[in-house]
């Protein structure tokens, strides 16, 4: 074999007088021949060099390597040779101390990476540290068999013995076999552990841009620029991307037109290991548009149609086709939308559905969605709300359990993360739905509850000294510092500080224009910018003690990152740029947007991962996935919105490409065409993961909140910011809605001057009392709610 099997490796050999000349020369040549660097070490006693003489021919041999200065981290093999070398090296002037060579050998035994080679009389060097060979199989010179046994070693009558990282040889005469065993062991380590390549078939996904198509082979360029050849077979199917409620659309008859350079395609197929490489044979192709460069999900109505189907799915799942009755509402919905065994109604899942239905009404104007939202908000008020007259605050139960008409309040969280406490996260999301509905109706009862809950945040969750909001308070004294909170005592986290903005606070500011909310937003974003980015990881820090020192011990989070939280920060910082712009907001958002793809996205298949270790372990180049490499639907949402708004405000083709690739993966793999709604999680290759709780469609992480938020804001960003197309929104202000009788119709925090209110209709009639630049409508007096249509248009440059 011509390959040098020890290339880059270092073999260190201990030396003293009375060495065996032939043996040492053999090692020097044999290991050098395999590409290793051979180094001789001895105790130099403060000299630059010492010259020793051989046992048989008194051949001189000069050594310059000082074993007292040896760096084991650069050594792969340490050999104790034959002759009297070991006996001379175990001399110690202080009988209470180990000789330097013995200390070196002991340290080498402590590092299993280093192969220890001990031959013939060399075993003497281990006598003062017998524990390193105790219980291990060895061989040695026949004269030392008793010594070996006295050391507790298992003497084995062979010329060469291997015990994991210890190779022993019988005599100098066996130095060739001994050396070969060491070479095999080191070389096997490098091939087995450092160069393992799967040599079996597996199926996987390739996402990429077509670079060529000829003779049934597609050339693809992945998101990160790698070239992949994918072969078509007789049984390769092909379909066009489709929205919810759309039929399967076969594309296999149009492959020649579709597979022209520039088109983006998902190819799922089988990898065959052949000839030192992989042959990839596609079994299923998904095309994103009817022609290359066209993306169906960028059609103006794509997301509107999607939110309509989501709304219909949840409406039917909860209430069937009949009247809306929240007594029948259940948080637990199975995959097909039927209700599970649980009789729990969670505040946050109702609130999230109210959010989704309100958003669906805003985009579609369908009355039924508004009804579901309004009755949901009323149900929350009647069943989930605790009005605290003593403290003049409002808080929300975790939920209620409904059994035989009787209602059991679930006051504290029933989730493991937050058990027996009132988590900020749940109180925040209790406001998500009512706030979005308030944008439409201006209902003063909702406004009063929002204000009461904000007082709760300021009085009980807020840290007046060091800023921010604590993550939990106890249910009796409402204190963040109560000992019953355990690991949640006196803690702050991403959710308790950062989730106000996306869950309700930006929407509340949009609805009211109240500068108090802008102040609170500014405070939270300043804290995010100050404390969350850290130099120790590309990912933000998400959990803190009261004084903002990082908490890396909490429950499942430890020192781990949620990919989507990073993207959520980038997205919301860019929204904040349109409210109270600061350089540091933009810089941080752009920085996160630019650095995240190699860390959080899947360059081969597309899509975004879930939870990863914030730091690399020793020898690692890829941040480890904590539980799995699946992709949760909401991480995709954060990516799409982050890159859309970055592309639409900071600009750049690269951000737009990321937005498009993220939206492609989401729309191709998360829509449940069989049952309706979206999947919770897909495997890395896009197949839905449908086990356990991840089959459910109504839980606090599903329930039409983020999926609807995506539809709503992707419509806003795609149309108004990226495509510069108009958008009509629907509102239903009550006669007593909005104390100043001003309806604010800005769909999101958008850069001032980019969008104007073009025309307004009230109850189907053109209406003139509006401010085009401020996007506000002065409401007429009315006896009953009015329907307002607001037509927004991008401002031409």
């Amino acid at each position, binding site marked *: 074999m011509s390959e040098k099997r020890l290339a880059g490796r270092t073999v260190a050999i201990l030396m003293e007088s009375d060495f065996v000349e032939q043996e040492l020369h053999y090692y020097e040549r044999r290991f050098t021949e395999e590409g290793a660097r051979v180094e001789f070490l001895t105790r130099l006693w403060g000299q630059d060099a010492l010259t020793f003489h051989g046992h048989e021919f008194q051949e001189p041999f000069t050594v310059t390597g000082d074993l007292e200065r040896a760096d084991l981290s650069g050594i792969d093999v340490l050999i104790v040779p034959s002759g009297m070398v070991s006996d001379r090296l175990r001399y110690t002037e202080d009988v209470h101390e180990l000789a330097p060579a013995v200390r070196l050998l002991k340290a080498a035994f402590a590092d299993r990476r280093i192969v220890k080679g001990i031959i013939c009389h060399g075993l003497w060097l281990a006598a003062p540290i017998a524990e390193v060979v105790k219980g291990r199989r060895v061989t040695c010179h026949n004269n030392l068999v008793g010594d070996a046994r006295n050391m507790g070693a298992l003497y084995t009558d062979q010329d060469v013995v291997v015990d994991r990282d210890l190779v022993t040889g019988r005599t100098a005469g066996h130095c060739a076999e001994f050396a070969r065993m060491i070479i095999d062991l080191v070389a096997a380590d490098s091939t087995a552990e450092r160069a393992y390549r799967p040599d079996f078939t597996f199926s996987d996904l390739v996402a990429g841009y077509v670079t060529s198509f000829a003779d049934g082979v597609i050339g693809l360029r992945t998101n990160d620029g790698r070239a992949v050849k994918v072969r078509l077979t007789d049984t390769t199917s092909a379909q066009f991307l489709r929205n919810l409620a759309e039929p399967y659309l076969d594309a296999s008859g149009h492959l020649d037109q579709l597979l022209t350079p520039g088109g983006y395609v998902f190819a799922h197929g089988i990898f065959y290991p052949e000839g030192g490489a992989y042959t990839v044979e596609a079994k299923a192709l998904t095309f994103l548009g009817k022609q290359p460069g066209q993306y169906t999900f960028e059609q103006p109505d794509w997301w509107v149609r999607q939110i309509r189907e989501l709304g219909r799915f949840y409406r039917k799942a909860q209430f069937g086709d009949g009247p809306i009755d929240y007594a029948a509402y259940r948080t637990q919905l199975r995959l097909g939308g039927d209700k599970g065994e649980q009789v729990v109604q969670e505040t946050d899942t109702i609130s999230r559905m109210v959010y989704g239905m309100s958003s669906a009404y805003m985009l579609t104007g369908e009355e039924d969605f508004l009804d579901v939202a309004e009755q949901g908000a009323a149900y929350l008020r009647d*069943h989930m709300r605790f*009005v605290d007259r*003593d*403290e003049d605050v409002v808080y929300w139960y975790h939920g209620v359990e409904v059994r035989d008409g*009787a209602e059991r*309040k679930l006051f*504290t969280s029933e989730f493991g993360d937050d058990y027996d406490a009132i988590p900020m996260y749940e109180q925040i999301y209790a406001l998500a739905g009512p706030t979005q509905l308030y944008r439409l109706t201006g209902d003063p009862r909702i406004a009063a509850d929002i204000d009461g809950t904000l007082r709760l945040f300021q009085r009980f969750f807020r840290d007046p000294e060091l800023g921010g909001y604590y993550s939990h308070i106890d249910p*009796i*004294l409402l204190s963040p510092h109560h000992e019953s909170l355990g690991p949640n005592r006196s803690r702050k986290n991403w959710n308790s500080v950062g989730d106000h903005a996306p869950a309700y606070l930006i929407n509340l500011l949009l609805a009211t224009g109240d500068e108090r909310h802008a102040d609170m937003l500014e405070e939270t974003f300043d804290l995010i910018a100050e404390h969350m980015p850290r130099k120790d990881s590309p990912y933000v820090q998400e959990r803190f003690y009261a004084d903002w020192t990082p908490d890396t011990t909490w429950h499942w989070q430890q020192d781990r990152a949620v990919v989507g939280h990073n993207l959520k920060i980038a997205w919301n910082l860019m929204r904040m740029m349109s409210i109270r712009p600061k350089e540091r907001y933009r810089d941080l958002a752009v920085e996160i947007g630019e650095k995240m793809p190699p860390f959080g996205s899947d360059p081969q298949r597309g899509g975004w991962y879930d939870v990863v270790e914030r730091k690399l372990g020793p020898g690692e180049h890829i941040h480890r996935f904590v539980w799995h490499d699946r992709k949760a639907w909401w991480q995709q949402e954060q990516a799409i919105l982050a890159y859309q708004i970055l592309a639409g405000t900071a600009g750049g083709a690269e951000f737009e490409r990321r937005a498009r690739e993220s939206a492609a993966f989401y729309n191709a793999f998360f829509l449940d065409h069989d049952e309706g709604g979206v999947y919770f999680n897909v495997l890395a290759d896009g197949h839905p993961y449908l086990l356990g709780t991840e089959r459910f469609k109504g839980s606090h992480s599903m329930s039409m909140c983020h999926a609807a938020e995506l539809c709503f804001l992707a419509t806003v960003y795609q149309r108004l910011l990226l495509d510069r197309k108009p958008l009509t929104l629907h509102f239903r202000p009550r006669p007593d809605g909005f104390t100043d009788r001003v309806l604010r119709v800005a769909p999101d925090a958008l850069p001032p001057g980019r969008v104007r209110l073009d025309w307004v209709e009230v109850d189907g009639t053109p209406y003139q009392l509006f401010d085009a630049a401020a996007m506000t409508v002065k409401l007429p007096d009315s006896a009953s709610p009015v329907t307002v249509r607001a037509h927004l248009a991008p401002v031409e440059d």
Partner: protein
Amino acid sequence: MSFKINMNVEGDTATIRLAGELDGRSAPELNDLVSQAVGRQVAKLVLLLDELTYMSSAGVRCLVFAHQKLPRGSEITLVGTQPEVAETIRLTGFDRSIMMR
């Protein structure tokens, strides 16, 4: 008027008599007793309130939390609730979960 409280447990029923004003400072006393009742997993918790003139929200929180921690199907009954106290409870929605006599 000072606050007085005592509890009597017989079988699977815990009866707590409250008198005076249950404010934020005295709520922990109620919490201690209902925690004991929860610890014994009683099926019925009866509160005698005819001499209670004021109940703070902290007091209601103790009862709601206790109800969550008692076994499923256990009952909380309030006896002799004065109108002001009943209104405090109604504002928390807890009246849907208990019996008031």
